[in-house]
């Protein structure tokens, strides 16, 4: 939203000395968190302490490994805080590297803990274990070409889209977050329909995703953020299995905004999402009747009910191509030239298609 010193509030997570007079800054909602140090940072400290401890095999024999299958009754004088066992599991799943990366998210938001588009780092921290499990265990994501993603400043990643549910966006965002240094949170553009759904819209916004309006995209690029767009839109996500790995028509808005903001476009190929939910038919009359973007028939949906929407455990491969720096050849005024924008959009589409064709099985 801003051009000015957006990160003047970098010290959000730092302890604030209470002023001699007037109110004391809390920095957290006392209705949801007790006042005091950031629980996330406290957990981070615990992880760092854990790494300094000897591995379990070197620990004294007298200490028995806890029975993971049953919850152990706790003694009243047990010094460990409530929920420690649970958070330890989460911490092990995430690992120190991820925890350190998560700690950098706070610089993206203001004192209240949100940015202008609804990103809430605390919500990302809560949801990341789930997405990380999908990333590592379910989709077994492999990726390459991270050197093509700018380490700072704005850029637009344009990727192919498929798979009924947008796990491709989520996995790409996790991959970028894990493999860029400093860690970058990709702000994916989501369809207006999804953004307007109860709970879903709020969840997407808290994860940093935005509804695809021009104002949102322009504002985020001005804010030096990394955008992830799927120029095929809904057409990509509902294409039948016969069309897999064939890119659909690309919308042109992202090229216009990239030209206006003078930022590069990084073509990105996502292999695997095209197989995660093969659509046999799209019953369009039913979709219109139910006011849904698609009414798919897959080998598992609707036969297994909502479970049938679960993606198959296909392995993902994400490849980031060399950036297309259209802005170095054309000025911001080129965004108003419809023919040129269409031509450049086709260039992006062809580049992504070539990447997909090169990498697909």
């Amino acid at each position, binding site marked *: 939203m801003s051009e000015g010193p957006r990160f003047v509030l970098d010290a959000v997570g730092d302890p604030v000395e209470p002023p001699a007079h007037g109110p004391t800054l809390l920095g957290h909602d006392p209705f949801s968190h007790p006042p005091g140090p950031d629980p996330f940072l406290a957990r981070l400290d615990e992880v760092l302490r854990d790494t300094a401890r000897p591995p379990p095999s070197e620990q004294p024999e007298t200490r028995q490994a806890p029975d993971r299958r049953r919850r152990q009754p706790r003694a009243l004088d047990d010094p460990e805080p409530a929920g420690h066992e649970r958070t330890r599991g989460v911490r092990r799943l995430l690992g120190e590297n991820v925890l350190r990366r998560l700690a950098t998210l706070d610089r993206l938001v203001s004192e*209240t803990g949100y940015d202008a588009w609804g990103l809430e780092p605390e919500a990302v921290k809560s949801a990341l274990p789930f997405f990380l499990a999908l990333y590592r265990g379910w989709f077994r994501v492999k990726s390459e070409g991270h050197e093509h993603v700018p380490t700072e400043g704005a850029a637009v990643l344009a990727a192919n889209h498929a798979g009924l549910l947008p796990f491709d966006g989520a996995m790409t965002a996790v991959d970028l977050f894990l493999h860029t240094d400093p860690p970058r949170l990709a702000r994916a553009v989501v369809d207006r329909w999804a953004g307007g759904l109860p709970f879903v819209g709020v969840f997407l916004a808290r994860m940093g995703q935005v509804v695809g309006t021009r104002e949102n995209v322009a504002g985020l690029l001005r804010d030096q953020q990394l955008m992830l767009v799927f120029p095929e839109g809904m057409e990509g996500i509902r294409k039948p299995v016969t069309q897999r790995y064939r890119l659909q028509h690309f919308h042109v808005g992202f090229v216009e905004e990239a030209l206006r903001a003078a930022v590069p476009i990084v073509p990105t190929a996502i292999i695997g999402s095209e197989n995660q939910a093969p659509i046999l038919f799209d019953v369009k009359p039913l979709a219109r009747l139910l006011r849904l973007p698609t009414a798919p028939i897959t080998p598992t949906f609707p036969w297994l009910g909502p479970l049938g929407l679960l993606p198959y455990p296909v392995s993902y491969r994400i490849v980031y191509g060399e950036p297309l720096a259209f802005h170095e050849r054309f000025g911001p005024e080129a965004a108003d030239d419809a023919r040129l924008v269409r031509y450049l959009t086709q260039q992006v589409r062809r580049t992504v298609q070539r990447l997909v064709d090169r990498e697909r099985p």
Partner: protein
Amino acid sequence: MSRVLVTHADQPLGLRIVKRLFHDPAIESLLAVGEGRAPRSFARFLAGEPPRFDYVRADLARHRAASDLFHSGRVRESGIDTVVHVPRHGAAPEPERPVVSGLPVRTAESRLVLQHCLEVPSIRHLVALGSACVYKLASGNAACVREESELDLEPSISAERRAWIDADMLFHAEVGSDRLRVVLLRLPSVVGDGGEVYLNALLEGPPRPHLRPLGFDPLLSLISDKDVARGVQHAIHVQDAEGVFNLAAEETLPLSRLASWTGRSSIPVPGWAVRALQGLGVLGDAAPRRFGITLDTTRARRELGFQPGYHIALARGGDGRPRLEATPL
């Protein structure tokens, strides 16, 4: 040097603006207009030497009162060249009941102030405060809107929002006029002293629970009343500035969090129940919204040189209770 008239100076936002402008050495004289008696804090301004502050009472929603004020000897003699129109806080009283020519109070005031600014020869500059609630709420939890974004002209909007939009359009129509330089500042929810919130129908007045559709939590921009006053100051002094500007701080909050931070409860209810209550007219102007907006302030930063000087956070007041507080950056 400017000679400034401030309307609704007896309301919290007007009070803040008057205080700011009074201490501005580039303001030669200040005429504050309010409906009620002069606030006590104005006593030291009124006693200042040499006298450069005056306070008059007038109901600007009434044609005769507004006309008497703008054509009075006070305005003529003091050579007022700038008018700062502060909107009436809270919902317009009895918005369904016509006050002047069938217009709700806020629209009537805006029309009369604008009309008299155009009539009085010495007035060359009008700074009007509007609300960000005029924007159309796009689908999605948050959309960052610019000044050119679409206004909500749906016939189904509440009378409160309609009044804001009517006033906005009245001022907007005069942008570019040779006779008058108009600056319209669109404001989000304004956080004042003691954590009070203004210009948000859901959060103004005494704490009471409000309903919101289940599964939605609109994101809202905030601004401190002190930053509003600073924005007005910029609008007065930047000579070539004209048009519409969004003003907002960096901070945003979801409605549920903002409600809890102002001591209110936000009760999620299913959408069908909200629609039923709206149909029965139970919710009135405080109709719950599913989507929110935040404001893109790029233009104000670029053309007015406005940078937020305060950030808004949760703080613990002297009484130990948590409340919203604006603290200097």
